[in-house]
């Protein structure tokens, strides 16, 4: 198995492993963060930190599940840092301009997506990123997020409820 070989220090195996999984990391990052460049940055950070983190990967686990956990943790850290930075950057006109430029590019679909994701709190966002975005089962998502399966199921019903409320609000 590639991951096991990588843990044991096989550089070739590691290179192959990361090349195979980069897209996955990037996709999940994009779904949680909602911006291409942020997702690219985050994927790069995850890749850079992965060699050191590999030691915590246990051979009896599924590599993709473990990777989802690592990626999700990185996303959380990033969101937390962003909360602090948000204040530090207040008043930078640049920020708004960039956001507007981005919004103009976005399709209607993406606009709806952004609206929906903004309506969801962080934990629900993470959950849909894995269940809907990555097609994981509730059990797999639960393992990756470190919560119980029941929690994932509950979160999904909560997502449903919030989305419906959002749609109703729009149609009023």
């Amino acid at each position, binding site marked *: 198995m590639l991951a096991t070989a990588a843990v044991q*220090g096989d*550089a070739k195996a*590691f*290179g192959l492993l*990361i090349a195979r999984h*980069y*897209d996955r990391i*990037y996709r999940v990052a*994009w779904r949680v*963060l*909602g*911006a291409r*460049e*942020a997702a*690219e*940055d985050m*994927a*790069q*950070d995850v*890749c*850079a*930190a992965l*060699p*050191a*983190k590999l030691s915590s990967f246990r051979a009896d686990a599924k590599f993709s599940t473990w990777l989802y956990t690592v990626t999700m943790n990185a996303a959380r850290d*990033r969101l*937390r*840092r*962003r*909360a*602090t*930075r*948000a204040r*530090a*950057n207040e008043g930078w006109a*640049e920020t708004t301009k*960039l*956001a507007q430029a981005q*919004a103009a590019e976005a399709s209607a*679909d993406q606009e*709806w*997506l*952004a609206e*929906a994701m*903004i309506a969801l709190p962080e*934990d629900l966002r993470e959950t*849909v*990123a894995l269940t*809907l*975005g990555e097609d994981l089962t509730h059990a797999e998502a*639960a393992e990756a997020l*470190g*919560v119980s399966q029941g929690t994932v199921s509950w979160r*999904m019903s909560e*997502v*449903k409820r919030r*989305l*419906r409320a*959002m*749609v109703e609000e729009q149609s009023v």
Partner: protein
Amino acid sequence: MTDELDLLKSALQSAPAPDAAAKTRALRLAQENFAQLQETAAAARPTPKATFLETTMTMLTSNLRPALYATSCLVMAGAAFVTYQGWDATRPTVTTHEPAALELAPQDEAAVARTDMPMADMAEAEVMEAAPSPSPKVSKRVRPQGATLGKLSATNPSAADNVIAPPQPDREIFAGEAENPVKVTAEDPISTFSIDVDTASYAYVRAAILDGALPRPEAVRVEEMVNYFTYAYPAPSDAPFSTNVAVTSTPWNPDTKLVRISLQGALPAIEDRPPLNLVFLIDTSGSMQAANKLPLLKQSFRLMLSELRAEDQVAIVTYAGAAGTVLEPTPASERAKILAALDTLEPGGSTAGQAGLHAAYALAEQMTDGEEVSRVLLATDGDFNVGINNPDALKTFIEDKRDTGVYLSVLGFGRGNYRDDMMQTLAQSGNGTAAYIDTLAEAQKVLVDQLTGALFPIANDVKIQVEFNPSVVGEYRLIGYETRALNREDFNNDKVDAGEIGAGHQVTALYEVTPVGSPALLNDPLRYGEAAAATDNEELGFLKLRYKTPGAAESTLVETPITDTADRRASAGWAAAMAGFAQLLRGSNYTGDWTYTDAIALAEASKGADPHGLRAEAIRLIKLAESLAE
């Protein structure tokens, strides 16, 4: 599936393809770091003894070249500008309080900047300094050869070392130590350790198992699993605690014996207790949002409040971004006011743990006058991610305050980024206990039922030293207490800190001993070693115990011989069952072919009276663990 979910799904699955150049860069960086790590693996691997802070620091300073740090911090700084376009772009800006500057004798202005900013922000500050007209496109992908980098590392190389988000192996960090090995009595007859009345590990194990996963082996501390339960130990007559020794058979090895050492703390009448000054130091950082964190914490404190008396005082300090006093010292009789203050707590921001501690201690000192007990109760999920970059200074600070009579207890909440080792260190430095609260029932047990014990120390710095008799005991090992080991000479040194016993507390320690001539001996005798001087003494060993009464500088010595008297009381069976269970979870080398099924049988046979259902719950946990282990 509803239309909304389908819509969200298709939108989410249309993730834009990754940029090829970005991908190539990321993969190259990953491979560079991988190669670096292989080269430095031997030097950089932290010792198991290191705390998480030390570990982090070790990794910061030795894992990667400074050049790579700098690369990454520039990249991170770039991210600061672009992340704005994310899902939160249209949200109102999240406001967090400015973390208060700390009073840790900063050396210079740069040091001040380092203490009051989170790591990530420092990266940004450094870059802003170096490149006054920041533009994400420019600062983002600077390679190590760039001029900006040169300036950065030249102006403040040590800051660059501190900047990068370290490659942490995991988010939950435990004070795990390797299992105590078997010792040969003839070579090493003395075993010394500090007592431990914490129970955090049991609650953590329970939370993990109920969540459907075996706990990580390093999260299991055998002594805490044993000490979680109460046993029928004789009450002390005139001393602050009674000492008892019993010898029983070992469930997992027919050829060894278990020596059980137990302490029972005196329980003074509750009405006699002096007034309490409590400062609740509550973590309200964003990570506390989960239902099993801040909401459970509020419920727990509500429970506890009903146990306080009119003459007790309560204050509340929060720390999230900035430390703030939510409730000035208030008599416990003003219940409505305290509850209202508790209800205003909302999660948000990052954790300024150290600033919070300073504020809480300042209040606690303000509340003390005379012989009242002052205690800071720190409630957190353990993620001190801001402001602590000098663990030694923090530890010294807590120890100094302990000597002035303000104690610190720690209540851990939640899973995901629980920093167990940090909690242990803080509580141990502050003469307090560390408990982990996962359910309201646990809050009841820790905060209400044990209010007196948790809050009134009756003996400080309790140390145990056992000398085994080599003519009777061939080999021995201490089960658990790995994080509490002391050096032999520390026993008589009153300056060395050790664990505290509170009112009514119980402590149980187990040794597995192998009699001379037993088939269970693991080590062959030395061919050239000196034969142990044979004595006629049939004692297994000699127990010495030191403690200080609160406020005393000199310790008192208690001595008891350990003799092979059978103990058939059920409590020995229960303690052994829990020790066995804990060792199975840890993957112990010494439990042989003993299984979870055996643990269940022993636990059920020795359950005894179980008024609060705690033992029945433990049996359920062993059964669950058995199914999870398959």
